[in-house]
């Protein structure tokens, strides 16, 4: 092998600093984590599937896993339904509005998740904005319980994740050639039909990457579920924290983390296959 060849610049080499960084601080710790999930107990050498068995035997843990996936799906769908129209308005807005709209869309990202979450505690409480509003309208007699419930977590998470859904869809929408819509109209396609037959399929890659981001971040988020959900609704990240940090049960926490990772990976692979198909459809 020619040594000089090693030093000729190639595109791949530009990614080398990040690759080294990720290997040192992500791949290695991940390998250590996976290794420790196969321990019988902390510090005991040997290979065992005991931690995984323990997880799947306990119905409480299975409920936690189910709730986590359900939360991910709920928040992803809510973000999609709420986010797509916003992205559509943004893409079709006149230039001078775009600056203001960008600012508004990014606004939730400018404050920390902790601050936003405590804000939601105030909003969702029994004497909070939502309940006071509904009571004053006469829609409900008794305040409804939102704080410390799954729905409360889903509502707060949707607001927090929304920008991550909107931005990829905006990017997709802005690539759609406006002449396509005009062509559709000239051929007698109505606005609704044009949207479903032409615009929406063309933005599927954006929709899918938005869903990916929102789902992966939702199922692995810690602060919002632990503060809004409290001790009464548990999700995988809160379970991991409790086992690893409070109960010092490292191997079990590692096994729970590995299971969460597997779920996220399965969704990522599934959605990216779908993304591939949608791209083929566009061409």
């Amino acid at each position, binding site marked *: 092998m020619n040594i000089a060849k090693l030093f000729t610049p190639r595109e791949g080499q530009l990614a080398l600093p990040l690759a080294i960084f990720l290997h040192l601080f992500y791949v290695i710790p991940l390998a250590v984590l996976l290794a420790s999930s196969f321990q019988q107990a902390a510090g005991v050498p040997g290979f065992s599937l005991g931690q995984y068995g323990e997880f799947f035997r306990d119905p409480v843990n299975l409920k936690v896993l189910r709730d986590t996936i359900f939360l991910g799906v709920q928040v992803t769908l809510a973000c999609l339904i709420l986010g797509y129209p916003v992205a559509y308005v943004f893409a079709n807005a006149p230039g001078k509005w775009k600056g203001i709209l960008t600012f508004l869309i990014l606004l939730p990202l400018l404050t920390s998740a902790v601050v936003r979450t405590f804000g939601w505690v*105030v909003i969702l409480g029994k004497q909070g904005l939502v309940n006071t509003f509904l009571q004053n309208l006469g829609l409900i007699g008794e305040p409804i319980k939102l*704080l*410390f419930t799954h729905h409360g977590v889903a509502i707060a998470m949707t607001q927090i994740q929304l920008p991550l859904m909107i931005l990829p869809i905006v990017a997709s929408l802005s690539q759609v050639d406006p002449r396509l819509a005009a062509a559709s109209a000239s051929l007698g396609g109505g606005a609704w039909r044009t949207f479903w037959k032409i615009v929406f399929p063309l933005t599927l890659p954006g929709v899918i990457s938005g869903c990916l981001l929102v789902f992966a971040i939702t199922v692995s988020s810690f602060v919002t579920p632990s503060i809004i959900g409290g*001790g009464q609704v548990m999700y995988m990240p809160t379970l991991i924290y409790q086992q690893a940090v409070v109960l010092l049960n490292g191997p079990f926490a590692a096994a729970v983390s590995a299971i969460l990772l597997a779920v996220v990976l399965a969704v990522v692979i599934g959605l990216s296959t779908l993304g591939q198909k949608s791209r083929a459809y566009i061409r």
Partner: protein
Amino acid sequence: MSNSFFAKMSRRSLLGAAAFTGAGILLKSCTNSASTGSNAASNATSNTASQTGGKLIATTLPGSWEQFNRTVVVSKFNADTGAETSLVPLVSADQIAKLKASPSSPPFDVVSLDYGVFDGAPKEELFQKLPLDKLKNYADLAERFQSQDTWGPLIGIQAVGIAYNPKVITTPPTSWADLWDDKYKGRVALMAMKNNHTIGFMQKVAKMHGGSTENLDPAFAELEKLAPNLAGVVANAGALITLFQQGEVDIAPHDLNSVKLLQSKGVDIDWVMPKEGGFALTPTMSIVKNPTASLDLAATYIDTAISTDVQTQMTETSYVLPTNKNVPIPAAIAQKLGNNLDEILTKLEFLDWATINKNRTEWVAEFDKIVQV
């Protein structure tokens, strides 16, 4: 990212990961031996220079403890020794987690954390026994807090009783059993079982209903009956405070010092000691194994925290009870708890953490099972 991308990547990346893991383990063993070497060296040099400066990294519990440690303990210690102290605010469990992550080159020299959590940690691996000969104030501790063989002194006592909103609850509660009263439907809050406040509360409830330190079953049965009154189970003390501020809950087990801090911020909250007695949460201080700072400096820091001067300020400003017997009890505490330390301590149960920590995992799981909605 396509499917074929994953398929193509897997073998090569696995190999790469394996190679890097191997390299990582090698690297880790190298740094371990290197850092213990440099620790020994720095210990040797700083030992000689300990009275004229040096650096110390100490942890503190967050919130009012951080404020107190920063303004009182650290400033007095720095003035006395000429040292430079960095204070790291962390909750107890996180302190242990950080120490466990690198026992041979610990990120702190002195830790200050809750004794319940401290007792559950692998003490021999992470901490060293207190060098009593280096402490001047140790003999000033109340006799029951002194021991010739100790990991570190208790630096204060937090009394846990019932916190309530006096605007809504005009007749103060008198018993832990009041939390089950029908009139507090949907107004009671508890912290999750991973918090020591709730461990202590469950211990109290168990003992009121025929249980014992090992047997919490009666308390779990009572917890099920508490469900209609429970507005929520919160993650931690910080979240509980938010609920009180929002008027979301009116009554909850909490400690006197947190309640007094809230009161001083204008929140409608007050505190009573139930007639069955409360319990004590006890922050402790300990020196880590292989500290970077000199042992003299670390011992002096702890000595400062238990000095009469510092503990008097702690009792007056933070409403944490002293462990130093020379500290006078201020009127605000005397009115709630009693005139002298001995009288107060009879009303506070000191929990058996060794037994609790043995059962903690099981109890937390049981508690979560009951409160899950």
